[in-house]
């Protein structure tokens, strides 16, 4: 089993390369912005902050350490989480267009979060905890509803059925969100700010939570890469080779719900990352999940970092929402994938 994982997965040097690229992009993203910071200043600021040493004058410690770095880390972790979720869902459902946003799971998570904000649901001692828990729960419930409906309508879970149900579900959920907003009173501002989707105000607590969620959810998904390969060839085939389809499906769905729920509760809905990145990764490294999942993880982090960078510098000093950039790129990619897959079938 170990040898097989080695044969099908990436070698250590490829992981080193991925890490090097990610670190380089992280560094650029911390450096570039409304105030340019030199790479050496970043190292000095981080090192001196960790060691508790005084910061030399001229180095914008607060910008680097308390604004840029947490934001950049939150962006990278969200990108990685959303992408690995997309890759896993696409394998599980044997559907290259499946993703949190196209399935309506992100919308479901948003509804949970909005309800939590509107009704002031909170977990004592854990800021944002209520929003997070509700987002995760609603993400999972949405997935159950969408897949349940899709199975009833079309057992083969064809692309059209899933996408259609996802769109209808999203519209339905968004209408409920609007109703909640109407009655939200003075909380409207908080909700509107949150629904715009932004990671710009992320702090180290967000980074920590994203990190924990990605460690748990990511580890579960990576653990099931072989099973996801079997699902990607067909659920029946997976069952026939001995995969416990029910358990794997449930656990993967829970892992995806946790990840999407946490991402949505921290950064709002960031569409299409989970769709575009796994697709590009599949073109580069093939459909085997032992390679696809790690490639999506790193690719997602880099993709969202670059999208965030664009959002910051395109209209400088104005800042675009990160969701605008990903939706712009994603919508074009979505049409392209749909076109290619349709053309392949005809």
């Amino acid at each position: 089993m170990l040898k097989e994982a080695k044969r099908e997965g990436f070698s250590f040097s490829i992981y080193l390369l991925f890490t090097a690229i990610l670190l380089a992009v992280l560094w650029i993203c911390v450096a570039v912005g409304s105030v340019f910071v030199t790479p050496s200043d970043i190292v000095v600021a981080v090192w001196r902050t960790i060691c508790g040493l005084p910061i030399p004058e001229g180095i914008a410690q607060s910008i680097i350490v308390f604004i840029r770095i947490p934001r950049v880390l939150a962006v990278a972790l969200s990108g990685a989480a959303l992408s690995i979720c997309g890759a896993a869902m696409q394998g599980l459902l044997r559907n290259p267009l499946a993703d949190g946003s196209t399935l309506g799971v992100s919308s479901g998570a948003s509804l949970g979060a909005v309800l939590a904000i509107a009704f002031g649901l909170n977990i004592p001692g854990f800021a944002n905890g209520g929003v997070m828990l509700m987002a995760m729960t609603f993400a999972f419930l949405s997935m159950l509803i969408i897949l349940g409906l899709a199975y009833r309508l079309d057992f083969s879970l064809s692309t059209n059925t899933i996408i259609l149900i996802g769109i209808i579900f999203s519209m339905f959920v968004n209408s409920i969100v609007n109703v909640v907003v109407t009655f939200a009173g003075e909380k409207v501002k908080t909700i509107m700010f949150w629904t715009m989707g932004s990671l710009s105000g992320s702090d180290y607590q967000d980074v920590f939570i994203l990190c924990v969620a990605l460690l748990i959810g990511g580890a579960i998904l990576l653990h099931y890469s072989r099973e996801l390969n079997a699902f990607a060839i067909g659920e029946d085939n997976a069952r026939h080779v001995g995969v416990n389809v029910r358990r794997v499906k449930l656990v993967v769905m829970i892992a995806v719900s946790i990840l999407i729920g946490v991402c949505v509760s921290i950064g709002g809905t960031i569409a299409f990352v989970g769709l575009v990145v796994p697709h590009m990764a599949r073109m580069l490294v093939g459909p085997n999940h032992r390679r696809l999942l790690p490639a999506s993880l790193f690719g997602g982090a880099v993709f969202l970092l670059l999208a965030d960078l664009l959002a910051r510098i395109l209209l400088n000093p104005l800042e675009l929402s990160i969701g605008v950039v990903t939706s712009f790129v994603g919508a074009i990619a979505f049409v392209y994938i749909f076109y290619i897959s349709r053309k392949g079938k005809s």
Partner: protein
Amino acid sequence: MNMLEVKNLLVRYGDLTIVNDVSFSVAENQWVMLVGPNGAGKSTIVAAISQGIPYQGQVCFEGENIASWKPVHLARNIGILSQQHYVSYAFRVEDVVRLGRYAHSSGLFSSGDDEDQRMVEEALEMTGLKPMRRQTITTLSGGELQRVFLAQIFAQNPRLLILDEPTNHLDLVYQKQVFGLIQDWARQPGKAVLSVVHDLNLVKSYGSDAVLIHRGKSVAQGNAAQVLTREHLQEAYDMDVYQWMNDLLQQWQE
């Protein structure tokens, strides 16, 4: 002891009874053919045995009811080749075949990587897929794809093979080759085959036993020659199959 024992199998979809009180068994080294017209319930019987759909009655493997078996245990003993294969992603031929080893290489009772690799190589060799092992399955023809999944099931190396129309999409050359392969496989100690087959000629040539299904019920079962009589076939197919077969044969002889 019989390897597979199906007792009073009943499958319903809503008010519709698809399989009605079907019982039969498969013993070691037997190749039992499930035959009957389209919609008779043959594939539903296979789906029930593979635990893919809910059913009433019992399906036992060497005396044990398999309903409570874990999927991995089931896959080590019973291998199923379905009629339909989906190709959504460009997996390589050898990756698909290697998935057949899933039940053997996961969990505590792993048979080891070398054994897995040997079985994969053997399966590729048997099905003639070695030259195209690195090709992606999206580029294959229907017949080639069928061979890939056949190789997967050979790599899985179960005790009992259940094949739902194994020669679907295969041309005559490969039909002959595949049936020869399965026949050799069934003759190994501790192995047996159950298959759904439409071509009655193949049933006669290769099947040791047959179960004739009509409208969800077993019309006749036993030795293949005894099952495929003119009367039984007339009842199941609602036409004179013997006459038609002879007419066809005559055209070849003229």
